[in-house]
C-alpha cells in the first residue's frame, strides 16, 4: 500500500504559491500602553501542490505551519507574489471574495471535539457545508448525502442525532473528516488531524485518509509535528522552522538522506521503540528552544541551534537551492555524509 508519487513535472499544479508571507500584529509591551509589533509567522514560502499527492508539512510548534495552512485556505490574510488555486489567481483577491475555491479546499482540524459545534447534532454538523454551498437541496437530499458520507468515513447511520460530547475522539475526528469531504473537494488541508487521538485510533484515521484519497482522488496537505506520521502518509515532505522552509523533498530521500541539519535533528529526536538503541542515544544534536518569532535570529534562522553553523550562517540567510530530488536552504548541507 505504499503511495506512489504522482508528480510528473509536466503536470499543471493545483496550487502555486510564491513568496507567501503571513504577518500578525501583536502587542509586545509589558506595560499599560500598548506597543504593537509585526510578527512574521510565515516568511516567504514557495511551493507547488500537484493533483493526487500528499504534501506533509512538519516542524516544531510555532514554526508557522498552521498559519501557512490557514493562509492557503484564505482564513487569514496573507501577502504573496503569486497565489493560484486551480488556475484562479487569488494573489490580490481579498479573502472574503475567494468564492468557489472555498468549496474545493476543505480543512480538518486538530482538536476533534472543539472543532465541532457542541449544540449541533451530527446530521447538522455534516450538512452545514451543503446548506452553504448547495442551498437548493431539500432536507431529504441533504440527509441522504450525510448518511452516504457517514458510511464513507466508517460510521453508522445511528450516529445522526448524537451530539459531539457523546462521541469518542476518534469518532469526532471522523465527523470532522465527513464534514470536509461532503462537498467532494479537490484538496483537504489536515492540520494535525491525529495528534489528539489515542495511538490505536491514530492508525485508523491515517488509513481512512489514505483510503479516501484513493477513492475520491483527493490531494492532501498533511500538517503534523510527528515525523513518523508524516512519513506514513506523504509523498513529499516540507520541513519548516520559524516560518521558513528548510527542506522540501520526496519522502524517500528526505527521510533516508536529509540534506538539512534541522531535518536530521528532528529525525534523531523522534523516539524509537527499540530500547537497546534508545538507551545509547545522544541528545547533543539539538539543544535549546525555538527562538521567539518576534525576534528571529539574523542570517539563517536555525544557526543558533545548529551544530554546523559558522560565521557565514549568522550573517546571511541561505537561499533555497533546488536540486533534482530535494531542495533545501542551508550553507552546509549534509550531502556527503
Amino acid at each position, binding site marked *: 500500500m505504499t503511495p506512489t508519487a504522482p508528480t510528473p513535472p509536466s503536470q499543471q499544479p493545483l496550487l502555486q504559491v510564491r513568496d507567501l508571507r503571513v504577518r500578525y500584529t501583536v502587542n509586545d509591551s509589558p506595560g499599560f500602553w500598548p506597543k504593537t509589533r509585526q510578527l512574521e509567522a510565515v516568511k516567504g514560502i514557495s511551493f507547488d501542490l500537484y493533483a493526487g499527492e500528499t504534501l506533509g508539512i512538519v516542524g516544531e510548534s510555532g514554526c508557522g505551519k498552521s498559519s501557512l495552512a490557514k493562509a492557503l485556505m484564505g482564513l487569514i490574510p496573507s501577502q504573496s507574489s503569486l497565489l493560484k488555486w486551480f488556475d484562479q489567481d487569488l494573489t490580490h483577491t481579498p479573502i472574503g471574495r475567494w468564492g468557489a475555491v472555498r468549496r474545493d479546499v476543505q480543512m480538518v482540524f486538530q482538536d476533534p471535539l472543539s472543532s465541532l459545534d457542541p449544540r449541533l447534532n451530527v446530521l447538522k454538523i455534516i450538512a452545514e457545508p451543503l446548506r452553504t454551498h448547495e442551498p437548493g437541496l431539500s432536507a431529504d437530499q441533504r440527509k441522504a448525502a450525510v448518511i452516504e458520507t457517514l458510511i464513507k468515513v466508517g460510521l453508522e447511520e445511528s450516529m445522526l442525532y448524537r451530539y459531539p460530547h457523546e462521541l469518542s475522539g476518534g469518532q469526532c475526528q471522523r465527523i470532522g473528516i465527513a464534514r470536509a469531504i461532503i462537498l467532494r473537494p479537490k484538496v483537504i488541508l489536515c492540520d494535525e488531524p491525529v495528534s489528539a487521538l489515542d495511538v*490505536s*485510533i491514530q*492508525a485508523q484515521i491515517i488509513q481512512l485518509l489514505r483510503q479516501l484519497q484513493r477513492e475520491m482522488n483527493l490531494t492532501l496537505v498533511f500538517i503534523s509535528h510527528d515525523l513518523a506520521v508524516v*512519513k506514513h502518509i506523504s509523498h513529499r515532505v516540507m520541513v519548516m522552522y520559524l516560518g521558513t522552509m528548510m527542506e522540501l523533498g520526496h519522502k524517500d530521500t528526505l527521510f533516508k538522506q536529509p540534506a538539512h541539519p534541522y531535518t536530521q535533528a528532528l529525525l534523531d*529526536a523522534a523516539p524509537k*521503540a527499540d530500547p537497546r538503541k534508545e538507551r545509547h542515544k545522544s541528545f547533543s544534536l539539538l539543544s535549546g528552544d525555538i527562538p521567539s518569532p518576534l525576534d528571529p535570529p539574523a542570517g539563517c534562522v536555525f544557526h543558533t541551534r545548529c551544530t554546523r553553523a559558522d560565521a557565514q550562517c549568522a550573517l546571511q540567510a541561505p537561499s533555497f537551492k533546488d536540486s533534482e530530488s530535494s531542495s533545501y536552504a542551508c550553507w552546509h548541507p549534509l550531502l556527503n555524509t
Partner: protein
Amino acid sequence: MSTHSSLLEVKNLNVHFQTPEGELQAVRDLSFSLRQGETLGVVGESGSGKSQTMLAMMGLLANNARAEGQVLFKGDNILNLPTAQLNQVRGPQLAMIFQDPMTSLNPFLTVERQMTEVLQTHQNASRGQARAAALQMLEKLRIADPLRCLNSYPHQFSGGMRQRIMIAMALLSQPDVLIADEPTTALDVTVQAQIVALLRQLQQEHGTSIIMVTHDLGLVAGLSDQVMVMYGGRVMEHAQADDIFYNTRHPYTRALLESVPRLEHADDALLAIPGMPPSLRNMPVGCPFAPRCARADNDCQRPAPLSLVTDGKPGHWVACHHTGATA
C-alpha cells in the same frame, strides 16, 4: 514479583467509582514494585486506568472514587491515609507531573509563587532561598530568561514551556519517586527528547525512581527498566523493557507496537487495531482486549490471570490465554 529492597510497592490495587449508573471499576488488581533509581514505564491508551492508578497512589482520586489494596512507600501503607499525614509524603518525597500543562497551573498566581510553595511549606525555606532554588531549576531545564519566567503568569507561556515549569516544580523538592503522567504528550519531539534526557540525568544524579505514564511505547523504550502495559484497567503484560520489545507475548502489546507509526518501519507496516478501547460502563466480562483481538476464542470469555511466562525470562508476566508462542 516483590523484591526485598523496593522503595514503592503496590499490592492488589483496585479503584472503584460510584456513579449514578452503578459502580464502575477503573483499576483491577494491580501490583508492581519499584526500587530506588529504577524506572517503570506504564503504557496504555486512554481509559486503561493508568492515570487513575497514579492518582490513587497520590491520594488524589475524585470524591466518588474508592481505592482498595496497599501502596507501601518505604514500608508504610500510604493508601487512604488522612490528608495531613499524606501531605508529609506527597510533594517532598512522592511528586507528580500532571498530564495537562494548560490546566494544572493556577492562572492567578505567578510562576514563582507556584514553584516555591513546596519549598516554603515542606523545607521552611525563606522566600529568597526558595526563589534562588527555583531559578536554578529553571536554568537546569534550559528555560530562556528564567528571571522573567518567575514573574510571569502561566498564560504567557507556550504549552511546552508550561510543561517544563511543571517538571521544574516537581523536581524542586528532589523527590524519591517522581510520577510523570504523560509528561511530554503536548510537546514537540525535540523538546520531548530534551525532557527524556533531563529525566535520565536527574535519575543519575539523585537516584530518583521514576514512574513514566505514557501512551507511546517509543518514549519508554530508552528510559524504562521495566514496562507495564495496561488495558481496560488491567495489567496485560509486565516485564523488563527488553522483553516487552523483543520478546512480546501479549497480542495487545504487539498491536500497540505495530499501530504506532515509526520512522524505522516501512510505510505499509502500519496496522490499525479495529474498534475502540472499551468503556468502563460495558467492560467485556473476559479479557478486555478480546473484542479487538485477532487471536480471541472461547477461552477469552473468561479473564486471563496474570501469570509468569513459563519459558520466558524471570519477571515476565502476561495476562493472556494464548501465550504459548511469541505474539
